[in-house]
């Protein structure tokens, strides 16, 4: 029986360097099961590297990474939707189940259901070339969710899209997380997106990957478009923003 909560993560002394320069500098971090964690920071602060370490796509040079379970189901969403152009939308979404050996008559209905959830129920026979950027990203999200992952990692997934589409996708992600409990680690450049989506926002410093701010966002879920303009939201955004700017200013 799989955990319905999501994975817990414990990082101690994680150190990773490239060509002699540390990208992540002896980092300690705890992530609670089912938590929505947003990571923000300037370019080169190691946030993408951290995600890759969590996904076991990369190995830390030092330190330990404990996961609450040995055999975790991890899903990753990149900035590029990364769909296979020779497969239809539904076959793209069903791919992770296919790779696990799930037969067609099980995985196709699962894919159909997820596509409906992200509003693409009519597009399942289409091919990626026929979709807009936002639609492709929604397919990518559906694909990430199809195995009911314990850990969902997203690396600036909506950065290439316009603001309106971005807000829609933020809401899709939020509703998917609320209906499928899982731990989410979400890297973004957008402070308001981080505050909107996350339980907890972490600011990483440039060129060393140290945590300069670990901030809880106690706003209730689900958050709506109206939330973005509420006073508490703006207060939280201001705090995060000051910490972010302040640290950036000390570097400049």
């Amino acid at each position, binding site marked *: 029986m799989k955990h319905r909560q999501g994975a817990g993560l414990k990082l101690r002394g994680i150190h990773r360097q490239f060509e002699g320069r540390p990208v992540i500098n002896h980092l300690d971090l705890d992530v609670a099961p089912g938590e929505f964690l947003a990571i923000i920071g300037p370019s080169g602060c190691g946030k993408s590297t951290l995600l890759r370490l969590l996904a076991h796509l990369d190995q830390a040079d030092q330190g330990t990474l404990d996961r609450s379970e040995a055999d975790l189901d991890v*899903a*990753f969403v990149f900035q590029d939707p*990364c769909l296979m152009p*020779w*497969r239809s939308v539904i076959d793209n979404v069903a791919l992770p189940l*296919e*790779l*696990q050996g799930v037969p067609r008559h099980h995985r196709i209905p699962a894919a159909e259901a997820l596509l409906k959830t992200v509003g693409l129920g009519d597009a399942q026979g289409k091919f990626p070339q026929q979709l807009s950027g936002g639609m492709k990203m929604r397919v990518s999200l559906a694909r990430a969710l199809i195995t009911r992952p314990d850990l969902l990692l997203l690396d600036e997934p909506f950065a290439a899209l316009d603001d309106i589409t971005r807000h829609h996708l933020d809401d899709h992600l939020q509703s998917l997380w609320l209906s499928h409990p899982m731990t989410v680690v979400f890297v973004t450049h957008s402070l308001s997106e981080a505050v909107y989506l996350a339980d907890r926002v972490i600011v990483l410093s440039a060129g060393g990957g140290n945590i300069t701010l670990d901030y809880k966002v106690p706003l209730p879920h689900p958050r709506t478009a109206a939330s973005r303009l509420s006073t508490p939201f703006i207060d939280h955004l201001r705090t995060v923003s000051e910490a972010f700017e302040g640290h950036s200013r000390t570097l400049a």
Partner: protein
Amino acid sequence: MKPLSGVLWLPPLMSFVLITGLIECSIILMDLPAYLAPRPSAVALALFIHAEELLKATRHTGIAAITGLGMSAILGALLAITLASHPLIRRAFYPYAVFFQTVPIIAIAPMLVIWFGYGQGAVVAASFIVSVSPIIANTLTGLLSTDPALLDLFRIAKASRLDTLFKLRIPGAIPHFLTGLRIASGLAVIGAIVGEFVADSYEDGGGIGTAVEIALKEQRTDLVFAAVLMSSLLGLLIFWLVSGLNQLSLKYWHLGEFKDS
């Protein structure tokens, strides 16, 4: 009123008419004898009169060339997949793939005769040797240039090596393979003709290579050019077939494309 550039066959037809017209006039004006420079009109006449034999010869060579190209496609793709599987294998065996490209076929053709005997066996082997290299090289490039993000996705999904090969690398490499096949199509014809110079069997009249040799011996320069023209047309036909395959892969199997005409 469709612009001239819009009609597909009109520009090449116009350039063909212009060039052959210029050649015809030059030869007449300079009073060049037929045994030095045959007039395009004489070549056309020779083509017409000897149409049956030339078509038979073209069919003879065409079968060998298409068989050779087919072998190159299958074996070339398999070799590329093998080379792509491991960097050590690649380093150890890729030089041999390059060997296919650099070996002068005229030199090893007699050996092909010893191994395959006279006739289609050796000719197909020659066609294969000459045409396999671009397929290996292009397919290998395609297999090695798989989208790294998709490779990461497969790793995270704990996909088996076989699944990664058949569900990701190979479908992604098909446009590259087809590019290699396009390049190889002309080479397959050349390889077959060169093979014929050494190993053709004359029972059914032989192929285009033999037709060229006979025309040279009989000092019929118009026939030489007619036979050469047939070989070009054969190359074009095979190229056109491969391009059709490319279009199909795009339209029905969505196997990607490269931007070219």
